């Protein structure tokens, strides 16, 4: 029997083939979801590609106030106010800048502008609210216009951005309109990577917009119908990502949220890895808070329950499953290689065999390769569609780092966020 190990081996292989491996099923599930979302995005893009950059002309000039929450932004707040003063929208009545008890000179910068320009109003919260939502709600109390906009203190909307967004409000069901958020400075590698990421996000968000499934109205520039904003009670001050939470609340009340791609606003992205990491943890923790808050809507009628919530959950499942499989395969490979090498040295046989080079990959490998190619194509399509003046500056190195390394950091951030969420949940 020892002379014919293949016969024995065949029996084992046969049994293995009959009994589907759990890992294969997970792979297939993973691939199925991946392919599904990729096809969904591609189909929606093909159907609506001519409308990505279109926006409706406004029937009237809605009155608008813009609230700028500010905390320790003395370096950027002046430029933000300048950008808002430079807007070409005629209905803009007030620019309300709310200082959340900054410890730097932000308030004196704001006051200088309020003294110089009659429509700039400087406000200060009675005490530090600790979150942007606090100062946004505080500023919203002083707004009496039809629309209310929010702009982060380190963001700079382009001159025509707001006027391009307003037309969407002609439709009564539209409660919020978001803009195209891009990275301002692209000096460090982490900024360049985020610049690519933001453009892909803009493209993907617009695709979701065609499905009526925009799940966030980000802080750098978002405009809400004031009556709807008041009706739902403003921002949730307990949530770390109030911009995601308010959008989900609007969707849960069957309001519509739109996105205007030609309305560009530039924002300051973290220039250091630590800052970037902390920002991502905050985003994911806020996302988890929001999922937890709206979990009862799961599979319920309406876009929130039938798509947005499952989409978020699948993103989490795919991320965690991906990292789980990666770690399992990595650890298994290391252990098996160690044992084989040890045995080979003791038995004085070949350490490296043809099997190690994997000359005959299985079909799952080709499936993975196809998925990777389609994903890269989607990424390039997004970058091609959402053009910037600096498009030529994206070199192959940055693109490679983004697609091979940067994207792989997501699952690790998900795990850290999930751990923190579980730990903190007891105290919430």
């Amino acid at each position, binding site marked *: 029997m020892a002379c014919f190990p293949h016969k024995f081996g065949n029996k084992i292989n046969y049994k293995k083939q009959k009994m589907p491996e759990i890992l294969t099923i997970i792979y297939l599930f993973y691939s199925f979801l991946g*392919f599904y979302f990729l096809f969904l995005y591609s189909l929606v893009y093909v159907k609506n590609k001519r*409308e990505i950059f279109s926006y409706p002309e406004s029937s009237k000039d809605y009155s608008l106030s813009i609230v700028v929450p500010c905390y320790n932004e003395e370096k950027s707040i002046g430029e933000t106010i300048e950008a808002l003063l430079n807007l070409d929208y005629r209905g803009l009545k007030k620019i309300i800048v709310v200082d959340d008890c900054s410890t730097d000179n932000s308030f004196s910068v704001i006051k200088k502008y309020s003294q110089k320009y009659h429509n700039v109003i400087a406000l200060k919260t009675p005490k530090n609210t600790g979150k942007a939502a606090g100062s946004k709600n505080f500023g919203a109390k002083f707004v009496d216009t039809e629309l209310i906009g929010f702009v982060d203190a380190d963001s700079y909307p382009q001159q025509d951005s707001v006027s391009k967004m307003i037309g969407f409000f002609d439709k009564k069901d539209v409660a919020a309109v978001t803009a195209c958020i891009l990275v301002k400075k692209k000096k460090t590698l982490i900024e360049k990577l985020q610049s690519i990421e933001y453009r892909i996000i803009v493209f993907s968000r617009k695709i979701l917009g065609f499905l009526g499934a925009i799940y966030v109205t980000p802080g750098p520039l978002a405009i809400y119908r004031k009556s709807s904003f008041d009706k739902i009670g403003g921002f949730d001050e307990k949530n770390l990502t109030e911009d995601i939470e308010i959008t989900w609340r609007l969707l849960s009340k069957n309001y519509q949220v739109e996105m205007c791609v030609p309305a560009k606003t530039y924002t300051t992205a973290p220039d250091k890895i630590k800052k970037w990491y902390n920002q991502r943890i905050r985003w994911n923790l806020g996302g988890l808070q929001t999922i937890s808050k709206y979990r009862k809507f799961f599979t319920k009628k309406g876009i929130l329950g039938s*798509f947005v919530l499952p989409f978020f959950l699948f993103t989490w499942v795919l991320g965690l499953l991906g990292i789980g499989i990666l770690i399992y395969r990595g650890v298994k490979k290391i252990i098996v290689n160690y044992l084989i090498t040890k045995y080979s040295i003791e038995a004085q046989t070949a350490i490296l065999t043809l099997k190690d080079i994997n000359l005959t990959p299985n079909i799952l490998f080709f499936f993975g390769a196809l998925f990777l190619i389609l994903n890269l194509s989607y990424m390039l399509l997004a970058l091609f569609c959402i053009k910037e003046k600096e498009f030529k500056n994206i070199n192959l190195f940055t693109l490679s780092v983004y697609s091979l390394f940067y994207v792989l950091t997501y699952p690790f951030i998900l795990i850290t966020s999930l751990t923190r969420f579980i730990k903190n949940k007891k105290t919430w």
Partner: protein
Amino acid sequence: MKTPEERYKNSRKSFWQAFIMTIFVFIIGIFLGITYEGNNLNKMNDYYVQSEIFLLDTLALSKITDTELNNNSIKCELLIDANIEFADRIYVEARSLERYEEA
């Protein structure tokens, strides 16, 4: 420009269309997978058969040689005849394989 309702209606069909496309890709993938893995399995079986034949030939040859050596009756003529017989056998098998291929 389409109205938002038209856009949503048209785009939301994509949920099912994407699902059907994914199923289609998976069916093709499974079919290709079975074909590909089947080919791999056949190749592996062929290798095993070849390996087994080679091993049996070696065993048989060494057995003959050992027996003859133990009996002190080993002769060059005997080994030459055995080799010729072996070569003839291979030739005949190759001819028949060739005939099969031509057919």
